[in-house]
């Protein structure tokens, strides 16, 4: 493999007809170029759509209560019910592989009136009673102070973390926020932190939220043990989509809801949505590989063809070598190596041009600003490595038939050709 004489010979052969070598390489280089570009474009689209999902822990479901539609155990249908804190515990006990269960209670919401007051300023905001884990399920950036923590929960501290939008409406520019009080439906909460959410489709709404400890919320607004809403995230190894039936089942049993009552518990499976998009990316990657490999295939056929011609031209030489005692496999190896070398070199050129092209596209994207659903098209090292593997394989493939034909002809016949 790393034999100097072999390499010398490969270079001699390939450089003996530079134009032909270049023309041959073009096919393979072009194929890899197309493959890289397609994969990068797919990646760009993927990045764009992923950005829309934000950093949300995607293996998550959201669950809320509705009215029952089937009467059960003497309870009428159409009954309004609410999750309880025991349900959270029960889910925790009975369903394995869950990472977080965050119960939430909520005030305000779409279309409701002003519920928060600070001095003379008032505003209508969503107010959430939450557990600290929620920040992992609905990521936000803490811009000052801190988020709700476990001590706040245990001590039922009346503290609040407010969004940018809340700050803009209730505070003057440059005013200190941390340590001040806001009044939520008549109850004073001390602001301990501010956050900013990535724009994830919610627009301004996401910034106009107030987070307070779940326990303090329940106490202040007389929720008792009620839980309005839950965000449940599964461990990385398991899928929430598979666990959700069980979770809903536990809750139904606890709340005395008929097992067949499909409407009583509402939920949204983020993971399923995400997977749908994921499988679209997968399909896109397939298309890219498919098209790229087809183009590459025509390049390979080109290389194979040229190698056949080269071998025809070298028939006599091969005859001489065999008369001098070169073993057939050695000739075969030589031709395969020539072919692999040629494909790898041309493939590398394709990769380099592809990378330069992507770099150029990124530069343009950067300068014209963000384009919808298309961010940072790129190819990973993994793609380059797999492209190289494909190339080596292609080289083998391209060289195989010529190599076979080179040793098929008997030395005596090879010597006779002129």
């Amino acid at each position, binding site marked *: 493999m790393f034999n*100097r*004489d072999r390499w010398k010979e490969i270079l*001699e052969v390939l450089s*003996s007809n530079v134009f032909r070598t270049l023309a041959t390489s073009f096919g393979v280089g072009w194929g890899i170029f197309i493959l890289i570009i397609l994969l990068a474009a797919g990646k760009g689209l993927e990045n764009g759509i992923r950005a829309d999902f934000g950093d949300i822990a995607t293996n998550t479901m959201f669950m809320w209560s509705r009215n029952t539609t089937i009467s059960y155990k003497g309870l009428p249908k159409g009954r309004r019910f609410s999750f309880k804190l025991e349900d959270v515990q029960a889910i925790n006990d009975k369903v394995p592989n869950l990472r977080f269960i965050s119960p939430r209670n909520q005030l305000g919401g779409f279309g409701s009136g002003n519920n928060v007051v600070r001095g003379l300023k008032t505003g209508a905001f969503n107010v959430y009673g939450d557990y600290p884990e929620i920040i992992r399920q609905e990521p936000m950036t803490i811009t000052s102070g801190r988020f709700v923590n476990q001590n706040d929960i245990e001590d039922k501290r009346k503290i609040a973390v407010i969004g940018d939008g809340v700050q803009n409406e209730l505070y003057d520019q440059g005013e200190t926020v941390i340590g001040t009080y806001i009044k939520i439906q008549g109850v004073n909460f001390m602001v301990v932190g501010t956050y900013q959410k990535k724009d994830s489709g919610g627009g301004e709404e996401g910034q106009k939220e107030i987070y307070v400890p779940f326990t303090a919320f329940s106490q202040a607004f007389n929720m008792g043990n009620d839980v309005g809403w839950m965000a449940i995230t599964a461990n990385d190894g398991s899928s929430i989509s598979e666990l959700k039936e069980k979770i809903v089942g536990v809750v139904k049993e606890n709340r005395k809801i008929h097992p067949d009552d499909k409407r009583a518990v509402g939920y949204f499976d983020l993971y399923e949505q995400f997977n749908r998009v994921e499988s679209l990316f997968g399909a896109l990657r397939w298309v890219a590989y498919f098209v790229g490999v087809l183009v590459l295939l025509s390049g390979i056929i080109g290389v194979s063809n040229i190698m056949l011609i080269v071998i025809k031209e070298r028939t*006599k*030489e091969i005859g*001489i*070598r*065999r*008369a*001098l*005692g*070169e*073993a*057939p*496999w*050695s000739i075969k190896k030589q031709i395969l190596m020539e072919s692999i070398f040629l494909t790898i070199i041309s493939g590398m050129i394709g990769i380099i041009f592809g990378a330069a092209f992507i770099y150029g596209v990124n530069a343009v994207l950067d300068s014209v600003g963000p384009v919808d659903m298309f961010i940072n098209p790129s190819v990973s090292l993994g793609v380059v490595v797999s492209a190289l593997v494909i190339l080596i394989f292609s080289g083998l493939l391209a060289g195989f038939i010529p190599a076979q034909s080179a*040793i098929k002809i*008997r*030395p*005596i016949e090879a*010597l006779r050709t002129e």
Partner: protein
Amino acid sequence: MIQIKDLHKSYKMGKNSLHVLKGINFNVEEGELVAIMGSSGSGKSTLLNILGMLDSSDSGEYILDNVPIKDLNETKAARYRNKFLGFVFQSFNLINYKSAAENVALPLYYQKVPRKERQEKALKYLEQVGLKEWAGHLPSELSGGQKQRVAIARALAAEPKVLLADEPTGALDSKTSYEVMDLIQKINDAGNTILIVTHEPDIADMCKRIVHLKDGVIIEDKKIEQVRAEQYV
């Protein structure tokens, strides 16, 4: 060194088959210099190619240096050729993009001789054929006689048991032919066994034995008094 018994060979062309060798029997001892003569188409090259394991016979026995040569696959044939045989062709058959020294070193490369030793040996044999100064030249820069001398050096490089030459002087003028024959005689003097196919009686007379082929059989096989080529050079 060489024992051949009842060797037959025919070429099939479609339905017809051409019986070229019709039972050849002959032995060659170590150190002989044999000329194989005969009219065109008498099967001289065919015989030499079978001796050289470049072609196979249909029937008959061939023993080379006490090794029976039969049922060879290509890999084995290549190894035997490399070990036992040196070839000299009418059309020289040098590899045109390799220098004289590289051409000579080629059989040694197939024997996996280390690079440095290969180069030394190649130079040694080029010196023996009087072309040391031409070591770095490509075949295209050499005259016909020089090319054939390089080819002879190449055939010698692997130190074969037998040297097979198919009309080695066929493409050369008479003066150069004698130079080449002089070289072949000297190599033979050193103890090498050599078989030469030739048309030319004067070349045949420079050997020690003449085998005459006609219509696929040996019609004459005689030892002769060798004419030294030296005197014509």
